[in-house]
């Protein structure tokens, strides 16, 4: 025992600190070196992210504070673009459109996708059904827009079908008047985006432990109780992702609107992204367009973060 103490004291005397502390420091130092090395491996990716993501964001914020019109050198004008944006008469209708898009594309694809996922996940050949529903999703927004334009235009498929079916009274200029033009485009978007929701929810449903469903069934739960008490809570992560993605997509809706109506007629169907594009690239008001882009970016990021955090946190307590 005394030898051990002596030995221990000797070690303590030589190093002037307990051996466990030295070992810990050695270990920490090693870890630090490994950490630095690993960061060096990350560096190219970090630099790429900075170049590809942060630089454009920084440049956009800078341009939003200038009168940039593309060719002539931009002049710093402070927050004037933001002031003009707030007083822009189109802002009100654009924000209302964004709200309609957000609510509709949140409710329709998510609800329809959930219903379809519930139906197809339990049937034979569900993979085939999933693929069928996913097909529209793989089309580009431009292709979807062109397809549905041919359906909704005044001399398009829908009106021709209505005429053939003897329903002349329902023939309409679907894309020429507000709000039916926005609603028509929401239908097109729902058709295109529901497939992904079906796939995500189907994956979620298939990952639910079978025992929980069996236990509830044995306890006498009916279909509604089974869904609401067993399946729905266990879709928490998938649901948060689906809703977060749907929210972000609806806020930055652009391609389908641009192809089907160009934001018109008379700017009635413009969304924030379309207004930003029109100001930047049609009128060459890059400074003003950048201010709208910054506003849109802040809106999308904050809504997405709040949605994801809220969704996950809320479900975690279940």
């Amino acid at each position, binding site marked *: 025992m005394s030898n051990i103490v002596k030995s221990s004291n000797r070690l303590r005397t030589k190093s002037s600190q307990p051996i466990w502390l030295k070992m810990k420091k050695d270990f920490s130092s090693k870890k630090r070196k490994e950490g630095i090395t690993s960061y060096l491996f990350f560096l190219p990716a970090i630099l790429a992210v900075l170049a590809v993501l942060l630089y454009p964001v920084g440049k956009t914020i800078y341009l939003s504070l200038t009168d940039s019109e593309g060719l002539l050198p931009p002049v710093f004008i402070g927050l004037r673009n933001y002031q003009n944006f707030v007083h822009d008469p189109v802002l009100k209708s654009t924000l209302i459109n964004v709200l309609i898009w957000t609510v509709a594309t949140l409710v329709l694809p998510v609800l329809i996708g959930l219903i379809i996922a519930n139906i197809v996940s339990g049937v034979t050949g569900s993979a085939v059904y999933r693929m069928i529903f996913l097909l529209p999703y793989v089309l580009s927004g431009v292709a979807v827009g062109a397809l549905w334009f041919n359906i909704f235009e005044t001399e398009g498929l829908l009106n021709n079908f209505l005429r053939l079916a003897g329903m002349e009274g329902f023939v309409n200029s679907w894309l020429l008047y507000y709000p039916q033009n926005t609603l028509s485009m929401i239908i097109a978007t729902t058709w295109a985006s529901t497939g992904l929701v079906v796939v995500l929810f189907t994956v979620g449903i298939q990952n639910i432990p079978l025992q929980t469903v069996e236990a509830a069934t044995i306890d006498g739960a009916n279909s509604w109780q089974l869904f609401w008490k067993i399946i729905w809570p266990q879709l928490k992560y998938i649901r948060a992702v689906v809703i977060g993605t749907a929210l972000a997509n609806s806020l930055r809706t652009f391609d389908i609107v641009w192809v089907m109506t160009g934001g018109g007629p008379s700017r009635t169907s413009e969304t924030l992204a379309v207004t930003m594009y029109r100001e930047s*690239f049609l009128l060459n008001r890059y400074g003003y367009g950048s201010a709208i882009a910054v506003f849109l970016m802040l809106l999308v990021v904050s809504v997405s973060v709040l949605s994801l955090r809220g969704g996950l946190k809320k479900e975690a307590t279940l």
Partner: protein
Amino acid sequence: MKLAKKKVAVMTAASLVLSSAVVVGAVSSANAATKVLNFYHDKNGWDTRFNEVSVGLKDGIGVTLKPSTYADTTLYQNTLNQAAKTGKGPDLLTWWSGYRMVDGAKGGMFADISDVWKDAIAKGDVSKDLQKQFMVGTKTYAIPNGVSFWPMFYNKKKFAEWGLTVPKTWAEFEAVCASIKAKGVSPLTASVDGAWPAFIWFEQLLISQDPQLYLDLTSNKIKYTDPKVVAVFDIWKKMIDKGWFTAGDTSFFGDEAVKLMNKGTMIPVGTWNNSAFSVTGGLVGGKDYDAFVIPNINPALTTQSIIVEAGAIGALAKGKNLATAKKALREWLKFPVQAIWADASGDGVPNPKVPVADPVIKSLSKYVATNKVNLIQRYWESGPVPLIEGGCVILSAFMLGTKTAKQATDELAALSDKEWAAWTTKYGK
């Protein structure tokens, strides 16, 4: 900026250009080495035409074109704005004349090609009056990419079948429209698809009523709320109410133009769309279809007026092959290449030595020259871009009935005041 002041004079030269049938050939000697010039444009389906021009340029000066089409005009403009700064991109590019050139000229996108024009005018390859459409200040920045009239295209066979003749007066024009409408066909094409087509009937009715009114309006000498302008909106509204126009989302290019023509609908459009009927539709000009100058509304007017559009081809100022590009532009204006373009496009060309081959354009050009029809610059090129673009949005609303004439003219007047003030601040008067 004196473009607006001299529109009629500018266009008179184009009339002579298009109606000329004198052929004086001049073939340039080919250079030893072939050089390739990148050529950007937004004219969908025109690559074949430009490739034929390329052959002509190769024969003349040993230079070929490598055309790149941008299907989306907005994307095209933005790409060129970036290319103007870096010099990377095209050597040659298509653009628009008039006010639409000013930003590019002031911002250093286009090279000064005044020397090209000086030589071309001296050799009689192009009219000096036409040059003014491509000038900003004292410098010239582009050559004309064809010269197009905006007449009314109509189905000649349907007219014969329905017992109709080409209208000479506004009353006759209205009678023709009423007759076609009675057959269950929309007599006139109108569209707000993409907003810009909204200016077509606006400018047409203004020049048919009073060309000077149109010139005064587009040069900001009178307001959109002027009673004479409002009266034109009232005429337009009556035509809308009679159901004479096609649906607002009608397209009138390519196959769609052919479908409209085959139904018997009349189409007011630039002669650059002539090939849609003759090539895409396989219709025979002068036999199946033809074109006429829209009659005056105001019977007191002694001469008719027609809209004329001259597209632009310029050289990128920072382009790495600028000297060759300018050489190509000079060659482009000479007889061999112009003859190729006239044949390929089926449209008018600026070189007066080139005969007009297409029967529809030939007949129209002859009518314009014989009757000394006023040639008026298109609305699209006749004012600051935000005013024209914003104006089309307001005109679209009027066409669809979501704004009254008063609302539309009030909004146009307010927009005009705002954008002309911005223009004056930016570039001076």
